[in-house]
Structures are given as structure tokens and as C-alpha cells.
């Protein structure tokens, strides 16, 4: 009897120690990524992260800088009450801050991983390396132009300029690697990207030098896809007729400008079937609250419409701005009007520095409309006390121009805690 009990007890212990190890499919162990075959997915992952970061930042920054006017719900694809009122708060900036930081981290870490896996020599001519460095550059530029504060890899707060410095380094490296990989498009995208961040850094000669190598028709876009809603072009989908009509061009400077000029760079339309946005909005310029007439943008007309990361026409405006900095009004206006002339849009004239800067500010607003660039421009010009004025409907004086550090970063990053 005792033997039986003892054998049963022994079995208990035996059974309790049986193998409980399970390998579940789906998510991949981090170690598996350190292989050549995984690198393409690492690069694409960084691209997807940047696409999402850009998607969220384009939309909210457009609302904040009055490129669009709220017309719909505050949830889902809507514009929050704070943003409607021009305030970017830490509890509402998570989508932009966190996605932007992830895009930067995955691209920078991805580049380091590629180098580790391929070795220095192969890395130096790797197309995958060139691509992820381009993503890293644009991710840093997105953060620099839209975030108030620099935070790198859980470090302490610093000036947001740090993103531009990193972007410049990434673009420089990308240019070299892309050239070695014989990929002209990536090399040009990197150089155009470097031009734009050099403008942000105040390095006008460097910016103009880079910009001069880029032809006007060149453009390098972030791609979007109609395969999943999270991959849709968000600013298109938020304003699609079903179900959201979350914003409008009513009450924006685009409304009057487009009607006056038919500038194809700021297209919008209206619908006889859907006259109004999908929600009520308060504090409208005419003093009313309620539904808003729905004018929907048509710059992006489908779910997979790409968004410019950089373009040759932006390069021309960098050159124009550099000329204005050098007080060459005529030179700047000539560049601006060359583009307008080509588009058959009324030309602008400016004989004073003030008017010329006003024209340049407007022209960048038109050229880079709905590309997550406006807040960065306004902040840069404000910081440098550039002359000229803005359209009153942009309400530049009272609206925030950058996203604060998100609440999640503040709470989790020990270097940011008071």
C-alpha cells in the first residue's frame, strides 16, 4: 500500500515537471531578424512605420495650421476639440510623437542591423541600406519639423534641431550608399531631403547646393495602399464621403485662393448629395456653431494616393528662400512665378521685402499643402523673425506650431521625469 502511494506521489512530481514549452506562430523572436533574408522586411517595416507617422502628422498638423477646417466628428477620424482650438497637448499628441519616434528608431536601428548582418563592405553598396537610411532621414525630418522637443532613444530632452542634425547625417550616408548601389532615385531623394533639412538648419548655401542638383519635376513620395485601412492615405480617408466628412476647405485660405486662381496645387470640390460635414463644429468665423459646408480636397483622391516627401519644386522654393535671405527679391519672385506661369496661375508681384516674404510663405503653403510641412515652416520663420505676413485665416498668432512630448514618453522616460 505504501509503495502504491509513493509511486503515485512520484508520478505527481513527474507529471508536474512535464514539458510545458510552447512555440506559438505569428510574432517573430527579435533574434530571427539578424539574418540576410529578414532584411528586406526590416527595411519595409521602417517604411511602413514612416508612412503611418506621416499619415497621422499630415492630418493633425493640417488641422492645426488651418490647412483644413474641422467639419466632423471628434473621434476616430475627427479633429479633437483642442486641435480645433489650436492647442496641441501632450495627452493628444501620442499618435504623432510615438509613431514618429518609432519610425526614426526602426529606421536607425534597422540600418545598424543591416550593417551588422552584411558587414561594412557590403553595407556600403547595399540598396537595402540606402533605402532604410532614406527612411531614417525623412523620419528625423518629420520629427524635427513637427515636434517641439528632441528626445533620442530614451534620452533627455534637447532642442528639436537634433532631429535635423541626424537627418542630415542619414541623408549624407544614404547618398553615398545609394550611389554605390547605382540607384539614382534614392540618391536624389536623399540629396533633396538633405537640402530641406539644411534649410531647417539655416545652412542656406548647403541647401541651395543640394537643391540645385534636383530637377523640378522630381518627386519622391511615401506610398500608401488600399489593401488595409491602416495603410490608407489618412487625410484622404478622413474626408471621404462614407462615412466621414471630417473636414472641409470652408473657412480656410484655400477656399478663396482656389476660387480666385484655380491653382491645381490646392484642388477641392463639393457635393450636391452631401452638403455638410458629418458633425457640428463650434466657434466658426461667422460666430455660429453647427454643421459646416463640406468642400473636400481633391489633392488626394484615392486610398492609395502617395504623399510627397520631397520634390523638385520644393527645391526651387528653397532656392527662392535663400535668395530672399540674401535680399534678392526679384530672383526669388522669378523662381516663384516660373512655377506659377507653368501652371497658368496668376503671377504674384512683390517689390518689398515684406511682400516678397509674404509671397514666399504663401507659395510654400500652396506647394507643400497637406504634406506635414506647414507647422515646421511657420515655426522656423517665427524663430528667425522673418518679415511678411500670413493669411488671417491661418490664425498663426494663436495656434501651436509643434507637438509636445507625448504623455507616454513623459511618463515612461526616466530622463524626462521632473
Amino acid at each position, binding site marked *: 500500500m505504501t509503495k502504491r502511494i509513493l509511486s503515485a506521489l512520484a508520478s*505527481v512530481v513527474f507529471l508536474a515537471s512535464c514539458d510545458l514549452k510552447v512555440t506559438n506562430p505569428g510574432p517573430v523572436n527579435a533574434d530571427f531578424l539578424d539574418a540576410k533574408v529578414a532584411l528586406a*522586411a526590416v527595411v519595409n517595416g521602417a517604411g511602413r512605420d514612416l508612412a503611418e507617422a506621416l499619415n497621422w502628422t499630415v492630418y493633425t498638423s493640417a488641422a492645426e495650421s488651418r490647412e483644413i477646417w474641422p467639419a466632423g466628428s471628434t473621434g476616430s477620424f475627427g479633429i479633437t476639440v483642442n486641435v480645433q482650438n489650436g492647442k496641441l497637448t501632450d495627452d493628444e499628441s501620442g499618435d504623432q510623437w510615438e509613431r514618429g*519616434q518609432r519610425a526614426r528608431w526602426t529606421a536607425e536601428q534597422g540600418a545598424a542591423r543591416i550593417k551588422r548582418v552584411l558587414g561594412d563592405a557590403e553595407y556600403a553598396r547595399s540598396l537595402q541600406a540606402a533605402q532604410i537610411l532614406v527612411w531614417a532621414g525623412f523620419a528625423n525630418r518629420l520629427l524635427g519639423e513637427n515636434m517641439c522637443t528632441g528626445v533620442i532613444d530614451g534620452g533627455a530632452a534637447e532642442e528639436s534641431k537634433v532631429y535635423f542634425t541626424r537627418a542630415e547625417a542619414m541623408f549624407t550616408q544614404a547618398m553615398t550608399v545609394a550611389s554605390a548601389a547605382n540607384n539614382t532615385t534614392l540618391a536624389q531623394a536623399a540629396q533633396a531631403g538633405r537640402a530641406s533639412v539644411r534649410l531647417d538648419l539655416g545652412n542656406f548655401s548647403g541647401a541651395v547646393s543640394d537643391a540645385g542638383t534636383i530637377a523640378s519635376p522630381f518627386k519622391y513620395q511615401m506610398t500608401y495602399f488600399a489593401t488595409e485601412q491602416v495603410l490608407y492615405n489618412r487625410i484622404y480617408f478622413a474626408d471621404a464621403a462614407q462615412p466621414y466628412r471630417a473636414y472641409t476647405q470652408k473657412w480656410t485660405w484655400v477656399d478663396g485662393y482656389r476660387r480666385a486662381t484655380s491653382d491645381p496645387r490646392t484642388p477641392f470640390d463639393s457635393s450636391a448629395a452631401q452638403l455638410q460635414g458629418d458633425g457640428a463644429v463650434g466657434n466658426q468665423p461667422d460666430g455660429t456653431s453647427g454643421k459646416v459646408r463640406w468642400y473636400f480636397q481633391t489633392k488626394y483622391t484615392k486610398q492609395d494616393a502617395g504623399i510627397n516627401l520631397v520634390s523638385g519644386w520644393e527645391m526651387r522654393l528653397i532656392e527662392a528662400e535663400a535668395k530672399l535671405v540674401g535680399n534678392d527679391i526679384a530672383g526669388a519672385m522669378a523662381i516663384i512665378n516660373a512655377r506659377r506661369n507653368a501652371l497658368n496661375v496668376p503671377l504674384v508681384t512683390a517689390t518689398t521685402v515684406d511682400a516678397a516674404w509674404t509671397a514666399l510663405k504663401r507659395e510654400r503653403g500652396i506647394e507643400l499643402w497637406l504634406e506635414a510641412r506647414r507647422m515646421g515652416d511657420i515655426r522656423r520663420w517665427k524663430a528667425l523673425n522673418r518679415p511678411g505676413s500670413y493669411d488671417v485665416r491661418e490664425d498663426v498668432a494663436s495656434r501651436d506650431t509643434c507637438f509636445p512630448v507625448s504623455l507616454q514618453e513623459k511618463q515612461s522616460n526616466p530622463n524626462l521625469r521632473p
Partner: protein
Amino acid sequence: MHPARLAFVARLLVLASVLPSTALSQATQTGTIRGKVTAAGGAPLPNVQVSIVGTRLGTATARDGGYVITGAPMGPHTLRFRLIAYTPASKPVTVTDGGGVTVDAELTAAVVALDEVVVTGTAGSARRREVGNSIGSINVADNPQPQTDFGSLLAGKISGVQVSGGSGNAGAGKSIRLRGNTSVALSNQPLFYVDGVRVRSDEYPKNVAETGSNLRSGNINSSPLNDINPDDIERIEVVKGAAAATLYGTDAAAGVIQIFTKRGSQGAPAWQLNLTSGFNKLQKFGTDAAPLLFMEPFVRNGQSYGAQASVSGGTNNNVRYFFSSGTDATQGVLPNDLDRKYNVRANFDFAPARNLLLSWNSSYTNDHLDNTPAGNNAHGLTLNAFRRDRNYFGSADPDTIRQVLAYKLSTKIDRAIIGLTTTWTPLAAFSSRATIGLDRAGVENRNLRPYGFLQTLGIVNDQRWANRTLSIDWVNSLTHGFRSRGLNTTLSFGTQYVSSEVGDNSSYAEGFPGPGEPTVSSGSLKNAFENSQTVITGGGFVQGLVGLNDRYFVTAGLRIDGNSAFGKNFGLQRYPKVSASWVTSDEQWWPSTFGTTLKLRAALGQAGRAPGAFDAVQTWDPVGWGGQPAFRPLNLGSPNLGPERTTERELGFDLTAFSNRMTMDFTAFNAKTTDALFPVTSIPSLGFLNSQLTNVGTLRKSGIELTVGGNLLDKTLLGINASMSLTTNKSRVASLGGAPAFQIGAGNAFAWVIEGQQVPMIRGRKVVDPNALHTPGAPLEVIQDYNFGPSQPTRIIAGNLSVRTWRHINVSVRGEYQGGAFISENSSYQALSRSVLWPTCFSAYDNIKAGMPITNFETATCIQKNVKSDMLIFPADFFKLRDLTVSVPLGKLIPQTNSTMLVLTAQNFYRRNYGMPMFDPEQSGNDGFNVAARYISEHIPAPAVYISSLRISF
């Protein structure tokens, strides 16, 4: 089957075979004992366990109460009669060689009988007097009320048990909490067992497209518990916390509920037919001016019909059976809502030898749900009706809004639960019970917006989801008595193994070429998704029980567990327990006045809660990007991740007086969860955005549970029974382990985990002096980050009154009050922030128009620019009449039948809110019923249910 599991099963079988069968020497001189067991009043009692003390001989009574034991050894013996919910009885008997002797017995019903046998939380089975912790139980078969779902069975019936959630959508599930929340990061739904088989209790997946908004659905989660046919349930046992659930180990910190289904009795087949019909009616949940919040054109009184048939019996003294089959069709109050359910059950008991009993349990349920799109769903009926002309159509016209009804949501559920239990008693002092069980749930969610739906080309998503839980439970008990010293000991040991596999395949398509019923193949763009994960828990336990003089009992036990979700640096976990009980009323000095019995009890024990399958490992998510492969950071991982551990203390007593006519039980509990798993926020600038479960916190909760019941009057023409229970529960975050306060659940719930506060705390903006008139132009005084109170009720009071009148017509009423909780009412915010003319502001609008002042709260909420999402937080206190039931015995009114009973019942037909102006504080939000903190979204509450039932026995 996985090789490791096969090996495990093989070991079990080998072990069973090597334990040698001990054939007891048969007495050469034997006799027969027969008799009949009845209840007080003479009604026969089936299924009474009749045994000869000191032998393995015994049987169960047949339906007529009769029993026969053959082969009884010659000489004097004691016969023991035991039946759950009855006070056991013993009778002397002397068997003569070859002779027969008749021994009849009468058992007395007892609400809390100290010798009642319970099995949940104990090793094998135990008498209540031996158990040091509280165990709640319900004898469902004794309740006359027709039950619509499992949640209704429990609501307001056991102290410490809270049932809430549900919505007006057909098939919506309800959450069950035992002593409130135990975890902030993991499911707080208790473990569930059906006839010893572990079954799923967490919700089924929501019927939602894999791509797109998570809100595009019926916005409800149905519950696996709704698949269990209430008519099949005999009894439910509830152990509420770690002190009692230690032997269940790593997953049991939130408590355990065990369901026992009906079984057959010896005798001829007995048939039971139960026919039900009734309707559901949406009760007022708005204001007097808008009682149904503009839903009037859309809702209906949903009809319901059901038929259940069962047959039970037993043959040859060694086979018993119970079969049941039924169907129910219930229309919801929303226009597309329909729930059709079919179920069958077959339970067998077979004793191939005197010392071996095989019990087979099997059930199958097929449930087909059609739902109306609802919730915070831009294509939903409720949202578009609530928001009037500010909805997604820009129109309050009902015909315009009805376009969303073309949105088809259907759910098909197949659920099978099977189990085989062998009980082997080779010696009178030793028994071994092994249960192997399988719970398989398959769900097909189909989510279709057809071609032309709101001028689109259509979208379809078809999800095939399945959960398979395999459980093996082996328990051995060895008893030994030292009669001279009055000492009895029981040593129990055993193992448990639970493997849970959950996975789904979803296919998605959009853009159909034309009208017609599409498949996923019909779409111009298609996507496919797959998820799969397995979690295994394996463990063993040992427990010792020492009893002295049948009134002092001490139990000590230890459970050792491993789990596949633990981090690689984490080994086996040990959960100890100890408990004691003292049947004080058995002491010689105890006065016999008033027929009082008293048991004092105390228990201390631990149980755990395991993290999820992927929480311990750093992983990247293969997400794809426009047709290209892509990885992105997913989970940071922690090699030190382990279960959270709850240590609970219980003190209490069970008291009966006036010869069991009055009962009282009281429990005070105090629980501390250490290594609590918190979703610690990752640092976004380090790339991983998802929070990481980490064992960092400490939570505490404490409370009391008091139930008092009694038979107030027991005359021939009038009987009155009443009971009342009180539950309190206060929780506190004792430590966040250095982490900052964080939010859990949906953002709109505003539920926070804050050091020193209750778990979770509802935090938001409080309008100061809300009812005072606001001075126009003056700033509105608002306190931000105000801690309103917990999301879980801190006090629950339930009462039941049952009156038996002429011809045994019985009228019973049951009510429940819950108080102390707060809830975010987000539906009003969503409307008010869109300037919807909202019923709570109608008087404010009139006053503004008339130039009259309005209150501070009206200023904050009725003027669009002032309203903030965290401003509409209200007390969730309410009282509900859970049911009012009239049962009328009709005797043999119907020819060829034994008896007929007519039962009329109304459930949840009266509610009063204390603080929240609209909606039902119990209703679920968009995230289903099983979330850490609910909030009110664009749903309608669960309707009142009116049912008539005719129960025919023949």
C-alpha cells in the same frame, strides 16, 4: 495531439494501470438492504447516496426514493444517507445471512448544512464542516424561474458575486466578478468548470472586420457561458478567491465557478417538457421627454419561444442517464436581432464494477445570432438615431437611418463540451478520480456590408475562430481514522493539465462587382489573416486534512505549477494554503436552545494569474506593407515575467438556528496581490510602443459578505421565506512599483490605476457646485483629474422574498442594489460635443432661450464649446428588480402526466438610477463585457424579459 501531451496522457494511463486493483474479499455471508428515502413531508428523494459505513458498498436512490444494496456483510452496520442540500442522516442496521432488511430514511432540507458535500476548491470532495473557506452554492433545479442565460442565474443570489454588463443586442454576454477585480491587466472572469471539465469563460471575439475600424460591428461580445443550457444545470458552486482556489493554481486568483449538470436516477424513464414563450421589451433609459433616446421608430417587442425536453432514468442498478434537447428562438428589441439556439446533452453514469464508476458528460450547442449594427459605429443604428440630425447622414429621418439595417452581422457558434470521469475506489479508504475533458468552441463571424450599402461597393469579412481547451484532472484521496483518538486524516494528491489553444482565420474582401450574396471571393480586393496561440498549465498538488472529533479540522495544501507563458528565467511556482474550521456547536458546552449550529472558519491561501502567451518574449510583428514583407517592433518582452500572486485571508462563520429555519453566513476577506502584472508603458523613443506586462505592483482588496435567510412562516396555507445578502469590497493600489499612474481599458472609460486609490479609479473633470446657477460670463469652475471613485461597486445588497399561498402557488421577488461605483457616460459626450439637441439639456435650452440662468453643470455640458469627454462621469448606483415570479402547480391537469407547473416571470423590469440621468449603469460599452472598466457608449440597455413557462412531467 502535441507529442508532449500524448506523453502526458500515456503516463496517466500507465499510472492508472500500475496501481494494482485490490479485489476485496467477498463476504461469504451476506444479505440485502432496501428502503426508501423521502424528504420531510413524504416526497421521494432520488439520487441520495446510501452507503454502508466502513465498506465500499453503496448505491443511489431511484426516482421513487427507493434503493437496494445487495451483498451486505452479515452483522450490525451503520447506513449513511447523503444528498446535497440536505442534512445527512445515519441509521443502524443489522444484516442477517441471506436475509433482507428494510431501512427507510427521511432527510431534512438545509440551506447550509454542515455535512453537505462540496467539491469545488477541495481535493476530491469534502463536507462543509471540514472546509475552512466560504463556498457559495445554488441549487438551480430548485428555482422555479425560467432562466434566459447563465448570468441571470447568478445575479443577486450569492454574496460576493457581481454580474453585470450586457446590452440590448441579442446574445450579449455578461461579466462575472467574484469579490471585484483581482487584476488590472488580465481577465477578471473566474475559471469555469462544467462537471469537472475546464471550459472557456472569457468572451468570444467581436464580429468585426479585421481591417478597418474596430467599431464596425454589432459592438457586442457574446459569452461562452450563454452556451450552457440553464435547464441542464443542477447546481453551481462558487469559490470566490485565492484562499479557496489554491488547488487550481496559476489561473485561479479571480475565483472558480463549477457547474454540475443534471444526472439520471434509477428507475423508469422520467420525461420533462418545458415550453416557454415571452417577449423582450426595452425599458426607458432616457428622460421623460425622450424615454428611448429617439430609438422609438426602430425598436420592437422581441418575441421569444422555446421548448426543452429531457428524459432521465437508470437501469440494472448500474446505469443512469440524462438526455436533454431544446431549442430557443429569441428576437431582440433591435430590428435585425435574432438568437436561435439548439442544444443537446447526454450524461451517463455507468458502474462496471463495484469499485468503479464511469461518468460521461457531453453537450453540444448551436447558436445562430443575427445582430443589428450598434454601438459607437458610424454605420450603426443606435449611434445614428441618438445623434439625430447631427449623425453621419445629416438627417434624423428614420427611413434614412434605416439604410444601416442592410448591414448584416451574423454569428454562428458551435460548442461541444465532453468529459469522462472515472472514480475508482479500490479500498474503502482510498479513491482515485480522473477527469479528462475537452471544450471546443467554434465561431463563425460574418460581417457584410453588401454591394450598394450607402453607395459603396461593399465589404465582407468572414472569421472562423476556434478555442480548444483540453483538461486533465487527477485526484487521489486516502483517508485514515484513529478511532480511539477521534482523529481522522485525509491525504490528497493529484495533477492537473490544461492546454488552451485559441486561433482564427479571417478573410476580408471589398469591392463587389454587383448585387447578390457575395463571398470573400467576390471582392476585387482580398486579405487574409491568421492568429494562433497555445498556453499550457501543468501542476500537481498535495493536501492534508486532519479532523479531530469531527469538529476540529485543519487543512494544509500546496500546489506547484508551471506555465508556458512564464519567462525563461521563471521556474515552477508554489501556492500554499492552510485553513481551519471548528464546529463550535458540536461542543458539549454549546447550548441546545433554538437548535443552533455554528461553524467558525478561517483560511489563508494563494493563487495566481498567468500572463499571455507572448508577453515574456521580445517579438516583432510581421505586418506586411502593400504586398511586401515587413517587420515592426511588437513586444519588448521580459525573461523574468511570471504570474501575479494573490494571497487571501478569510474569516467567517456559518450559523443556523431554529432547526435550520434561519441561516446566516458571514465572511470577512482580505487579499493582497503581489507581483501584480501592470502594463508598464514602454518608452516610445526606444521604438516599442506597446506596454509591457511587468510584475511590479501590489494591490489590496478587502470586504465582508453576509447572507441571512430564513423561513419566516410555514403554515399549510401560507409560507414565507426571505433572504438578504450584503457584500462590500474596497480595493487599493498599494504600490505601483515606481511606475507612474496609468490608464487601463478604453480611453473613454477614464479608468486609472493610481497609487493609494481604488482599482481602477475613474478620474476626470468635476464641475464644482454643479447644481448652482451659473453667472453668465463667469468662468466655469472645474477640477481636473478629480478622482470620482472606483469602477467596481463597493456595496451590493440583494434580497429575496418568496411567499407560498393557496394550492402552493408561489410568488417570489428578487431585487439588487449596487452602489459605490462610477462610470463614464460617453454617449452623451459624443452627442453634446456635436451640438446634438440632447434630452438632458432640454430645460437648459429653454432657459437659455428665455434668458434665464442655467446651472453650472448645464453650462459645462449643454454648451458645445464647454463640454469635455471626461466631464460626464456619474455614480453608477442603481436598484433593479431582478425578477418577479409566480409559479402555479397545476397537478395532473393535463391527462397522462405526473404534474404540470405554470411559471410566469418578469426579469429586470424595474430599474432606478441614483445619480446617472440616463442609460443603465450595468450596460456594456464598445469593448464588450469583460473589460477592466466599462463605459457607456451608443448602446441600448438589456431589455426587460417577460416569460411564461409550462413545465410538464410525465
